């Protein structure tokens, strides 16, 4: 990095300051199961580019991918410096006992707490990429073709990424009462267009990752008032771990489906009297990893930006911010802390070491004891950048 301009009082001239990035050392990366290759390799790329040694612990809930990484990485990368350790909770616990220079974790808040608590022992800095209930504000769009595109993007952004099992996928939609029906009709049409009449065939749509999550999602649906709010879908097949794209209209706000991150193919539509109420709705809940808003109202956009907080905000599309690597990717509050992608990946695995260079030339006495009035006056003037005062003082003309 280029040397930065010095801003110290002149009495310390000459001084040259620089910030030098250096690797943190040995880093541990935990990746999750929903994007098992990218969420493993992407942080690894950052760690390597910053010059670290890496241990990658892929998620055991995606065993074929975990195996693939464990078998393939040693064939291509320097296995003295980059290792893959497979395993579940027990292996993770053992890894966490070691002294790492950084831990990078993608996953759920409950496991993140365990990781951060383990990091305390060695004061290891952590980055935690979590999730949250990513809301999608759907404002009225006057142009039918815009609405069509918006709906396609919502459907693609809900059921496209791993069938809803994505940290930045659409969790729920906020829409004005009077447009809800129309929106739902359009969503249904688009779902049919994308996934066909028989989505159970799992063409172009993922299944639920495992029985545990299947059960979790089924429980969300089985709450009586929630089940009653289903307006499309609801079909489940335990054997195939399949849950079809399901839309719910105004499930109770205190039901688990509206208090926990869904991470599945269930889409609650929450209706409001006025779309601007969505801001308060979102603010009364934990900060999500992403916030989406379909609107052409510039004032509303500004309000959303300044009055809500989330990892990121994307207007008029879903998930695509993930592809823009000039934008830092990370959460805030419950959705995590730290960030990566692009240069931010390099930075997250680096220590920015400050370096100040001085010469022996031009040593100024008043910096050191024994103290006296003259020295104190000198220091006060110098720190105020009051050079005229300094000159006067030196000439004996200042009291």
């Amino acid at each position: 990095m280029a040397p930065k301009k010095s801003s110290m009082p002149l009495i310390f001239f000459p001084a040259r300051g620089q910030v030098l990035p250096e690797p943190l050392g040995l880093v541990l990366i935990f990746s999750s199961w929903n994007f098992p290759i990218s969420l493993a390799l992407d942080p690894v790329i950052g760690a390597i580019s910053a010059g670290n040694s890496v241990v990658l612990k892929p998620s055991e809930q995606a065993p074929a991918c975990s195996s693939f990484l464990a078998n393939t990485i040693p064939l291509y990368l320097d296995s003295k410096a980059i290792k893959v350790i497979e395993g579940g909770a027990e292996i993770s616990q053992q890894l966490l006992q070691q002294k790492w220079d950084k831990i990078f974790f993608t996953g759920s808040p409950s496991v993140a707490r365990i990781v951060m608590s383990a990091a305390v022992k060695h004061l290891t800095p952590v980055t935690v990429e979590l999730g949250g209930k990513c809301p999608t504000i759907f404002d009225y769009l006057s142009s039918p073709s815009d609405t069509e595109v918006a709906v396609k993007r919502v459907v693609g952004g809900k059921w496209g990424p791993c069938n809803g099992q994505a940290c930045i996928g659409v969790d729920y939609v906020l829409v004005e009462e009077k447009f809800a029906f129309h929106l739902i009709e359009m969503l249904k049409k688009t779902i049919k267009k994308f996934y066909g009449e028989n989505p159970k065939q799992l063409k172009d749509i993922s299944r639920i990752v495992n029985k545990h999550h299947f059960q979790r999602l089924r429980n969300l649906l089985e709450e009586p008032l929630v089940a009653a709010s289903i307006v499309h879908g609801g079909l489940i097949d335990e054997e195939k771990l399949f849950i079809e794209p399901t839309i719910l209209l105004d499930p109770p706000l205190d039901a688990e489906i509206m208090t926990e991150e869904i991470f599945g193919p269930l889409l609650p539509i929450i209706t409001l009297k006025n779309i601007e109420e969505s801001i308060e709705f979102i603010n009364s809940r934990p900060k999500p990893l992403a916030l989406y808003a379909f609107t052409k109202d510039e004032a509303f956009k500004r309000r959303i930006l300044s009055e809500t907080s989330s990892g990121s905000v994307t207007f008029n599309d879903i998930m695509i911010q993930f592809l823009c690597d000039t934008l830092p990717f990370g959460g805030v509050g419950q959705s995590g802390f730290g960030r990566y992608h692009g240069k931010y990946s390099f930075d997250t695995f680096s220590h920015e070491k400050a370096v100040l260079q001085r010469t022996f030339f031009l040593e100024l006495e008043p910096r050191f004891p024994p103290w006296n009035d003259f020295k104190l006056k000198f220091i006060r003037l110098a720190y105020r950048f009051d050079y005229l005062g300094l000159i006067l003082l030196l000439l004996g003309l200042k009291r």
Partner: protein
Amino acid sequence: MAEDSETKKVFDAEAAGSLMKELRGTYASGKTRSYEWRVAQLKNVMKIVDDHEKDILDAIRADLSKPEQESYIAEISIVKSSCTRALGELNRWMKPEKVKTSITTFPSSAEIVSEPLGVVLIIGAWNFPLLLALDPAIGAIAAGNAVVLKPSELCPATSSLIAKLVGKYLDSSCIKVVEGSVAETSALLEQKWDKIFFTGSGRVGRIVMAAAAKHLTPVALELGGKCPVVVDSDINLPVAVRRIAGGKWASNNGQACIAPDYIITTKDFAPKLIDALKHELEAWYGKDPLESKDLAHIVNSNHFARLVKLLDDDKVSGKIIHGGQRDKANLKFAPTILLDVPEDSLVMNDEIFGPLLPILTVDKLEDSFDMITSRGKPLAAYLFTNNKKLKEKFVKTVSAGGLVINDTVLHFAEKTLPFGGVGESGIGSYHGKFSYEAFSHRKSVLYRGFAGDASARYPPYSDRKLKLLKALLSGSVVGVILALIGWS
């Protein structure tokens, strides 16, 4: 709030809970967000230090017997310059940062918007009790947060003055001071903060981080470490010695996180260095340093006893070559130099945080570089040399929070440099713009339109769509065109 110190109510978990509730409400009202509010508060911090300079210097003297000049340089002037910088730069810091987008997201525009984290907790340390409470607070306020300040209880006069002045000059609906020690701090730590900024020891830093882990609260920990000074022989010795002595004994008598902890020099050069140090010490503090008014006292009897223990260690007591005098009743401790203490002695394993300066001698200076980092990465490391190669090797191989060549402690005053540790010396950094960023969330914003929707994104998927997507994602315009016309 004033109530906590005046009515002497116990600040327990319940009090912490209602404090948090009140601040969350105020923060949610948006009061701290405006540029005007932030500027008004920063100007008032400036007023605190300008109008009450004497009170502040008196309080610090009462707590630490720190000479006025030290307090002025290290505490008052730095707080003032942090305010000035924040006031001058705030507009720029608050502006969104536009970033480039590529064909992958075309058409789109993107920016990064800074926003406050929310309600933050700042825990100050006792050695620079005003600075280490107000300096982070300046960053937090500039970034638009609501703030709770917990000054160190080991400096009761300063802590109570901070509580009084903050209550009087700053917006007490958003910026509060809670005084107290372990019980009060624990009550505060149970709350869910949006950020905790802690300055202090590694031991307490761990307690803070463990509490933060329960709520997944991000932390900044400014800790310490054994900051080494490597001294080469071919240097301007008088200047170097003044800078070393200044960084050590004129910084709260060695009780500073970036004070030189120990020296490494060559066997040949050590005698000259020691002579020069002794000479300078006598010039500064006289023949009897315990009588000097220019030396800060040890903060309390616990730390005094700790330092005595380091010296009374069998392995070490024979190695004292200068100083060693102390006055327990008045908590005075003379500058003390030790030569070639064993590497397994206490004084070489714990952060000294006091006026003892061990000097280790080696044959070749480069050999010492690995030793430095093996003790845990310190907050700062110093090298005095005119040898360019040695300088380069040092900068390249020694990992520390910050490095200074040919001086000590001064990087603290350079606000364009991030100040913070690595490894055992801490997490996160601040000063200048880094303070603002330490208390901000940089929110990514992507703007898209509805034109140019690539149907290749959506199911039903096909090979052709995949080809087009691959081209789009690779950012290759040519690839995209070829895919569109079916040529790839």
